[in-house]
């Protein structure tokens, strides 16, 4: 089966989108006093890192952040062929009473986000949780979960793949592609 790789977001578009998302966060969270940004492992932490670069250049104080791995909270344990390998969780602040923003690259079925809502309780009960995603794959949700901040939405088929590539992780440039099978 031939694969078609279509550019969704060019490097310039990725940058513009991240800056817009950062502005929206500032609009809602002001000085980020009670806010903690949490990147969902493994790929959300790359988006988090990019957003922090933008936010830290504008904010006066340091923004609290962390990464959360959801492997042990997934709902497909013993239902997959091979178990997923866990990544690092690093949350140095208590989340009790904090405003938490989950950050991920692609929102697809919503199951990761559900697992994350479960996993985050181990660090305290947040006052509220919001969701920021770079790409929202619409109409493919399996759970009633929607993003509060979305970079770009895309209509795609179940077999399609959204690839988010980052220069700081070894790709040639920051870009987002849609990989589709030869469906015709």
């Amino acid at each position, binding site marked *: 089966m031939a694969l078609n790789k279509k550019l969704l977001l060019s490097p310039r578009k990725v940058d513009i989108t991240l800056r817009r998302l950062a502005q929206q966060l500032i609009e809602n969270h002001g000085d980020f006093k009670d806010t903690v940004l949490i990147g969902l492992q493994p790929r959300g932490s790359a988006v988090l890192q990019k957003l922090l670069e933008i936010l830290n250049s504008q904010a006066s104080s340091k923004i609290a952040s962390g990464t959360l791995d959801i492997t042990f*909270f997934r709902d497909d344990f013993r239902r997959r062929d091979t178990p*997923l390998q*866990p990544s690092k969780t690093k949350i140095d602040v208590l989340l009790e009473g904090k405003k938490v923003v989950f950050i991920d690259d692609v929102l697809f079925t919503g199951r990761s986000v559900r697992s994350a809502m479960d996993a985050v309780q181990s*660090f305290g009960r947040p006052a509220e949780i919001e969701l920021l995603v770079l790409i929202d794959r619409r109409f493919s949700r399996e759970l009633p979960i929607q993003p509060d901040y979305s970079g770009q939405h895309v209509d795609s088929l179940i077999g399609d793949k959204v690839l988010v590539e980052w220069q700081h992780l070894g790709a040639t440039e920051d870009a987002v592609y849609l990989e589709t099978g030869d469906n015709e």
Partner: protein
Amino acid sequence: MSELSTKHLLGIKYLVKSDIELIFETASQFKEVINRPIKKVPSMRDITVANLFFENSTRTRLSFELAEKRLSADVVNFSASSSSVSKGETLIDTVNNILAMKVDMVVMRHPKPGAAYFLSQNVDSIIINAGDGAHEHPTQALLDAFSIKERLGSLEGKKIAIVGDILHSRVALSNILCLQKMGAEVRVCGPATLLPKHIESLGITKSTNLIETLEWCDVANMLRVQHERQNLKFFPSIREYSQMFGIDKKKLEGLSKKIVIMHPGPINRGVEISTEVADSKQSIILDQVENGVAVRMAVLYLLAAKTEINFSN
């Protein structure tokens, strides 16, 4: 590679290097989990584990039980002294009766070498060996190797000495196999009466000189003198053993380098290890205990992942 090559954990003998690496990687994530304010994950909430201890154990049983509970598994405990084993039931019957009550995994300690392997051939369940006679104690070896790796960064090319009663020790054999698979060099040291004949055939060296061994090694794992397994006298007196093969502050400080001290517990303070050494900065005894829970969580998690939920009934 994110899957174990084996269905059971019967011994280190049955693991390959990538299995051990996978267990270590998973264990380091679980170590982070057990240091959270809420130390529990829901992965094994639909799994029941039976801990069958046909021989006394406090530490290993507690460590397994905590590991199981932190993975949200249901746990049943069984100890031989309070069971129908004393009424003459066979091992297979005992275990099949427990499995009939829909238990998914069995953690077993047994005084007979090979008991875990035997069980794996005769019952339909996942078996984890928590020590079988003087044969193997795989989770102890894994947590020891994990603790060394954590302290020294790697096991490759490291020199590890195992000191004490090698003859009666299941910890020694599992440790030797595990450390070798991870690329470390092993030497055993102890009274000649407590070193098995032909132990060099495992590809290790042996010595009856403690100071020389300590100068050679990066890590010394001091085994417990197992009074309960010694019907015969293997050395003249505890005092003499302690002088020849026990480690104290003077011996430790007389060495030309700082070595790491380990002990699988329970410690006989003043026999194989002095109080000052056990409580010193060079000792990682309590790290071993903490890592024990994380490593056992990793083993349980990775083996449970290989089972499938049966929705057909």
